[in-house]
Structures are given as structure tokens and as C-alpha cells.
């Protein structure tokens, strides 16, 4: 029999820490700080709206690009939040989570050999999606001393004549790093200078703790060269609803709709109805969740400081990214021992790129009580490691 598989697909490396995940899932009594989704239930009024849509028999496809009502609300929301005006008819597509948006944006924009700049550490899908779209991923290792922000120098050094797209993953998973208006300004200059396009993954935009989130699309002349990706999973605690959206120039969105139409047809109808309610009436719920995350963030930073664990202060998402370099072990070794000895699961930084070596991703999508227990164990573990070393 012939090999049934595509070389392109088999060449994509499975996550190197698969083994670690398998062990975690076999330990039901372990405390996990490894979750990348909110601990809150979807606000009830949103769920209720989803249920109501089922009762009314809203069980059919919507138009490919999404419900008109929802697209209109998305435009109003983006105008209100990040001050960018999109036309709901031509510049918006509702997708199956932000992840689909990333995938189809890359597929719509790349030809074979086009280079995509991916600042790391970052979410795990950009790289394989680039490869699947025949692009060439070029990673930019970000540095802790810059609080894992992308600098203009790092960006410019990575650009070649083949560079076409820059991925901007901020607020960042796994580091929690954000890009402020001042941080973005020099990046915008370089993007324009080299005529690049940006895919800005702003899925954590609602979870910014240092002033409001700023979108790179809001800069003069940037809307024309940016695909803004966002969705409902993180800010509205709607991960399982699988709903996101992409906004950008008509010519790109049109092609994205084409791919989406053939691959997906449309995003889940009931999720779309529920999301209309999320954008219309849930400001208060979102604000409350944000405040709650922020309290936990402050708690973790305080605890790290107390136990002398180095960690830059992140102002976005729900992750902190402490350094474990002082212990002279790899992230994976640390995470494995921590799991075995203290039964707490954290994600090694290397899961998000090689430059995550020496760091851990700790999620604070957990109650303060859970965090307290886990941090107590971390302190015990850290003290033990330190006494072993001296």
C-alpha cells in the first residue's frame, strides 16, 4: 500500500511535551495550574440566550460570514473598544474560535515560500498553520529583559525580502506580556517601511490590566494591512462555544470567507446568537472577571516576590511566566519533578517555543484558594531545590 500520509503533515512535530501532558492527565489528584481557559462559567445571560435560540428553532446554517446581527455588534464593539471602524458587510467574518481565523488568514495570504514572522514564546498554532499554508515560519525569540515585548530591532533583524506577514500575539499566551501604544509605535513604522501585513491575535484583549488594550489596527494606515483576530473564548468565558472573528481589508476577508465557506460553512448558529448578547449586555460581567483575574495576578506576583522567584510583571491574559533559571534545570525537568513531588502541574515554557526554556507558564484561571494551595507547594518545592543546591 502507498503511504497514505502527506509529508507536509507528518513533518510537523507533535508537541515535545506530549509525555508530560499524558502523565498529568493520569494524575487526577494533582492540582493543575496548566489550564488555558477561564475558570468562570459563561455568564448566565449569554447561556440563556443560547438556550432561547434553540427554543426558537434557530438550528440552521447562518450566512457564511456570520449572522448580520452579530457582525454589526462586532463592529460596534471594536469601534468602542479599540477605536477601529469596520464595515460589517465586507470586513468581518465570524469564525470557529480565533484559531480558525488564524488558519484561514494565513492560507488566504501566503504563497509557497512566503515568510511569516512569529515572535516566541507564543501560542502553539501559528507555526504549524504557517507550514500548512506553505509558508515559512521564522521565529523571533523575545527576551525577558524586554518583558517579552517585541522590539523594533528584533523585528527588523528578522525581515528578509521574502517576509510577508508578522504575527502579533499580544496580550500574550504564555508570558502575559502586552504591547502598549508606545511599544507598538516603532513596530508600526517597521511594518510600513517593509510593506508587511500583520495578523494581530487579540483574543486576550479584554484581559489587560494596565490601561485599555490597544490594537495595532488602530494606528494610521494599519487597518489596511492588518487582520485583527479576536473572539469570545477568553474575555467572555466561552471557550466551548467555539466562536471568534476576523476583521480586515475587504480583499483579504473575501478570500478568507471563500476558504471558510468550503471548509466550515459557518460558525455554530447558537453560539452566534449567544454572542450577540455577550457584546450587547455583558460589559459588567466581563469587568468583574477582569477584576478577579487582576486580583489573582497581584497575589501571584506578591507570592513570587516573597519566595524570591524571579518574574517580570505581566499585565495581560491570565498567565505569569516566572524564571526558574536559578535551579539549573530545564523547564521540563522542573515541571516534571514539581508534578511528581508536589502534585502540581505547570506548563514548561518550552511548550511555546525554544526560547521559553528556563521559564514556566502558570495560569491564574483558578480561585484564590486553589492558587494559595498550589503556591504553598511551590514554595516548599523551591526551598527544597535551593537547599539541595547548597
Amino acid at each position, binding site marked *: 500500500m502507498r503511504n497514505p500520509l502527506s509529508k507536509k503533515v507528518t513533518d510537523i512535530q507533535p508537541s515535545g511535551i506530549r509525555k508530560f501532558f499524558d502523565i498529568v*492527565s493520569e494524575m487526577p489528584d494533582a492540582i493543575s495550574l496548566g489550564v488555558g481557559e477561564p*475558570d468562570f462559567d459563561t455568564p448566565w445571560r449569554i447561556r440563556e440566550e443560547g438556550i432561547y435560540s434553540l427554543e426558537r428553532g434557530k438550528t440552521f446554517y447562518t450566512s457564511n460570514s456570520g449572522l448580520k446581527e452579530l457582525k454589526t455588534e462586532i463592529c460596534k464593539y471594536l469601534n468602542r473598544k479599540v477605536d477601529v471602524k469596520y464595515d460589517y458587510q465586507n470586513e468581518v467574518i465570524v469564525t470557529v474560535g480565533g484559531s480558525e481565523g488564524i488558519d484561514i488568514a494565513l492560507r488566504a495570504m501566503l504563497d509557497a515560500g512566503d515568510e511569516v514572522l512569529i515572535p516566541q514564546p507564543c501560542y502553539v498554532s501559528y507555526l504549524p498553520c504557517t507550514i500548512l499554508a506553505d509558508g515559512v515560519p521564522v521565529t523571533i525569540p523575545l527576551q525577558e529583559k524586554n518583558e517579552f515585548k517585541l522590539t523594533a530591532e528584533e523585528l527588523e533583524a528578522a525581515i528578509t525580502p521574502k517576509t510577508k506577514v508578522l504575527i502579533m500575539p499580544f496580550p500574550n499566551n504564555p508570558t502575559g506580556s502586552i504591547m502598549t501604544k508606545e511599544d507598538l509605535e516603532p513596530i508600526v513604522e517597521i511594518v510600513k517601511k517593509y510593506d508587511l501585513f500583520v495578523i494581530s491575535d487579540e483574543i486576550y484583549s479584554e484581559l489587560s490590566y494596565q490601561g485599555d488594550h490597544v490594537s495595532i489596527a488602530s494606528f494610521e494606515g494599519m487597518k489596511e494591512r492588518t487582520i485583527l483576530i479576536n473572539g469570545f473564548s477568553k474575555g467572555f468565558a466561552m471557550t466551548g462555544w467555539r466562536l471568534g472573528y476576523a476583521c480586515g481589508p475587504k480583499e483579504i476577508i473575501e478570500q478568507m470567507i471563500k476558504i471558510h465557506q468550503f471548509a466550515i460553512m459557518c460558525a455554530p448558529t447558537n453560539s452566534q446568537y449567544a454572542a450577540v448578547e455577550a457584546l450587547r449586555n455583558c460589559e459588567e460581567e466581563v469587568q468583574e472577571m477582569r*477584576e478577579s483575574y487582576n486580583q489573582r495576578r497581584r*497575589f501571584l506576583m506578591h507570592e513570587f516576590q516573597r519566595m524570591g522567584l524571579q518574574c517580570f510583571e505581566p499585565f495581560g491574559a491570565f498567565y505569569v511566566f516566572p524564571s526558574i533559571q536559578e535551579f539549573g534545570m530545564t523547564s521540563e525537568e522542573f515541571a516534571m519533578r514539581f508534578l511528581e513531588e508536589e502534585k502540581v502541574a505547570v506548563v514548561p515554557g518550552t511548550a511555546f517555543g525554544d526560547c521559553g526554556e528556563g521559564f514556566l507558564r502558570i495560569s491564574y484561571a483558578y480561585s484564590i484558594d486553589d492558587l494559595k494551595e498550589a503556591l504553598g507547594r511551590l514554595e516548599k518545592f523551591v526551598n527544597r531545590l535551593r537547599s539541595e543546591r547548597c
Partner: protein
Amino acid sequence: MRKQILKYIEKKSKVDLKELAVLLGTDEVTIANEIAEMEKQKIICGYHTLIDWDKAGVELVTALIEVRVTPQRNQGFDRIAERIYNYPEVNAVYLISGGYDLLVTLEGKTLKEVSQFVSEKLSPVESVISTATHFILKKYKDHGTVLVKKSGSERMPVTL
């Protein structure tokens, strides 16, 4: 800051000042001063405990009593409300719009205590026209806290 403190202690009145200071990004003294000031101004009126008496194995009832009254000259409902709320067994008294005037709650009493209160204390009050007593059969949610058992989280332990 006040609003944030209030929001926090509304749900969790057992305040660890040090912890609250960390969570709100300020210092202990600020929190302590704000709380003291709000206690003085009676913004914070008390620190009560939400008890699920059923779970404690104590068989006590909670009664909601609708009371219709004749308001008194110059005093409106205040005088009659005072006569009722001064009884220590009364848990809460609200002036209500709609079909009746006062809502009186008695908590953690026996059936007999409630009926005695209604027949011997409440009904004989001159301005009381009528009462209707309701007993709570099951508390699902109280003070914003769901009391019925909730299933644990179904999140997967690790997601990227």
C-alpha cells in the same frame, strides 16, 4: 477603592487585611482605614455568617410574612415597622410596593415559634390588617451564593 473593598467583603467578610491589600494592589493601612471609616459611617453595617442550617442538621424554618397594615398619621409605615423590627426574633423588615406593605422574615425558628409570633405578637398589633405566612421549603441560593451542590469543573487539566 471603597467599591472594590465592598465588593470583596460582600462575598467574604472574613477579611485578611494583608491578603486584601495584595489583591487590590494597595497597603494594609489604607484598607484598614477605609474599612474603619465605612464601619463608622454605617456603610458596613455588620459581618454576618451565611449558614445552611439544613446541613448543620438543625431543623429550623425560615418564614416570610406578608403584612398589610394601616399607615399611621404623620408616621407613615415607620412607626409600625419599628414595632415589628424591635422583636429580636425578627430577622428583616422591608417596606414593599405592591399587594402588601411589609415583608417580615423570621429565620432559624421552629414552626411553633413562628406561629406564636404571628398569632400573639404580630396580628394583635392594631394597625395590622392581615398577615400571610410563607415557609421556605428549600434554599437554592442565598446572598448571591448557590447553596445546592454544584458539580466540579470539567476543564481539562492542561490546555495550551
